[in-house]
């Protein structure tokens, strides 16, 4: 699905990613954990093509394409989805209208006809129910006046609408109460299949009780420094990151 090899990236002359490598195969769920400032959101932004970051070395291959050569929208069309840590409020832009445009532009690239209004609305109903997002919210301005939990559910709603191959969830669980967390996790689980993959960036082991990862990686100072199974997340939750620092120092 995606192969990241020795990725280096900087912003404003500050190197953040310092040789990160990671491989995710179809059907897998990977969790990335790490202390604040380690570069987790930077990795997500670089993969999504945010232009503020400069990739200085390394390569990323996504479904057989050189990801770094693609524009942000071309990455989306190829099946990459990023659930933002801080979803943007866009007053005046209707959530479902923009999604319809996004879906139709994606379909156009695949030589498919635009989705019919009827099919689209049926899909909105089905997918908003999946994350228990009020259909009224779904059609309002993007994230405007949404609570924190509603914004995160809206991210998963959009993910469901776009049916990506690879989803990167950047701290989608942060700040959610347990009910919202369950809803988001069950939404993600229902969307999971053997043809897609998920990268979950999180601080908290709690989410991983609901979305069980195949691998847990520790991102520290711009690199993946340790990889394990689900039990690594529990260990990190109990012991923090200091022991990892010591391990690296040795």
């Amino acid at each position: 699905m995606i192969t990241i090899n020795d990725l280096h990236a900087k912003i404003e002359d500050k190197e953040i990613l310092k040789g990160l490598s990671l491989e995710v195969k179809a059907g897998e769920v990977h969790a990335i954990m790490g202390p604040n400032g380690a570069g987790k959101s930077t990795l997500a932004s670089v993969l999504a093509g945010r232009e503020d970051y400069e990739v200085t070395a390394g390569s990323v291959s996504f479904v057989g394409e050189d990801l770094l050569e693609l524009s942000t929208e071309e990455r989306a069309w190829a099946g990459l989805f990023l659930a933002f840590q801080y979803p943007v409020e866009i007053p005046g832009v209707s959530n479902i209208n923009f999604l319809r445009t996004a879906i139709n532009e994606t379909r156009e690239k695949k030589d498919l006809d635009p989705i019919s209004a009827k099919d689209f609305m049926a899909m909105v109903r089905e997918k908003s129910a999946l994350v228990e997002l009020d259909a009224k919210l779904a059609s309002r301005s993007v994230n405007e006046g949404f609570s924190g939990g509603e914004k995160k559910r809206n991210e998963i709603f959009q993910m469901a609408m776009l049916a990506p191959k690879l989803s990167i969830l950047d701290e989608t669980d942060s700040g959610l109460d347990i009910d919202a967390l369950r809803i988001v996790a069950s939404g993600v689980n229902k969307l999971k299949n053997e043809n897609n993959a998920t990268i979950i960036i999180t601080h908290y082991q709690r989410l991983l009780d609901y979305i069980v990862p195949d691998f847990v990686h520790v991102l520290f100072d711009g690199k993946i420094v340790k990889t394990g199974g689900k039990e690594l997340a529990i260990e990190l939750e109990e012991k923090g990151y200091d022991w990892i620092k010591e391990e690296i120092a040795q």
Partner: protein
Amino acid sequence: MAEVAKNNINFKSDLQVTSVNVSENEKQKALDVLQNTTLPTTRVEAWKYTRVAKLGKIDFVNEKATISDISNYVIDDTKCSFVFINGHFSKGNSSQEIPAGVTITLLSEINAPLSKSSLTIEDEVFNAMNTAHLTGGLKIDITSNALVEIPIQIIHILKGDSTISNFKTIVNAGKSSQADLIQGFFSESGESNFCNSTSEINVAENAVLRIDKIQYESEKSFHISTEQVKQDKNSNFRINTFTLNGGLVRNNLNIDVNGQNCETHLNGAYLLKNKQHVDNHSVVDHKVANCESHELYKGVIDDRSTAVFNGKVFVRPNAQKINAFQSNGNLLLSDSATINSKPELEIYADDVKCSHGSTTGQLDEEAIFYLRARGLSERSARHLMVSAFIGDVLDKITNANIKTYTRRLLNDRFGWEF
């Protein structure tokens, strides 16, 4: 005619003599003003950001012209549509099914001199020129209690190089009448053509008058409009001004609110690119108590274009319980685009609710990244953001035909698909 006014606007000696019967007295006054007044410079406060000196370098002409297909300029398919080319009535392109309760007279067909103008002539070169050299126009009288069922459409088209049209619309909306007016200003062809338009609008007691005005001349055109509006008590006046093309455009909107319990709505959208210059000046003069006025203008300014907004609201002494709201928002799409925005309130009464505000910003790049990350092309994402910004003003258009037409123009000129 054929005179050349010094330091002013020059006319070629073959400029056609007006066929409109302006009273000798008014005409002479206007000619005197033209003789003694130069074109305003940027030292004049009201013209601080708008240079009109270029107008003094053109030898203007006015000739009748024909256009065989005007379908591009038809905003609404109303049966009451009056088309003027270079200020002259184009009968063949017009459809004159006048709705009940309305009388429409071409100014060129009025035998008696026109009744006294409500325009200020002193120091106002363009009003003086419009009066002294009036090319044509029309007068619309709406009888008391008439509910005019179809919109009255006035289409003005410029054609030919260095063409000048001094055009006038007179509207008398009778007591308790209700009507909708559409004004469209276009340019078929020609460089350095100039439409100098004035409107004298009287909204009588309890009348409702709504105007949608679309300006879509060319980047080589000049356009100056002055609307002089008087509102009597309990009346409701609304004008939406959409400036979608034009080289240099100046709109003067002067509203005298003379009676109590009036409502006034001024909305405008201006979208500029290349080297366009669009200047909207408005004055709402609340002379009496218990009225409300709402003004919403929004601009999208790209490339090296410049926009000016100057909105003045006066609340005269004893004009208590006035609610006056004014807002101007601007979106700059390029580093070389400029906006000069100056909302002004002058309040001489104490029991009023007034607010004004002006904002200038750029497109939210974070939002654009978000939309692109969901699969919107960059172009769509930017268009969507612009359309979201300007959307609330476009929504002020209530007539669906005008809405559709406006969207078509936006698509033609800016490639919008929304």
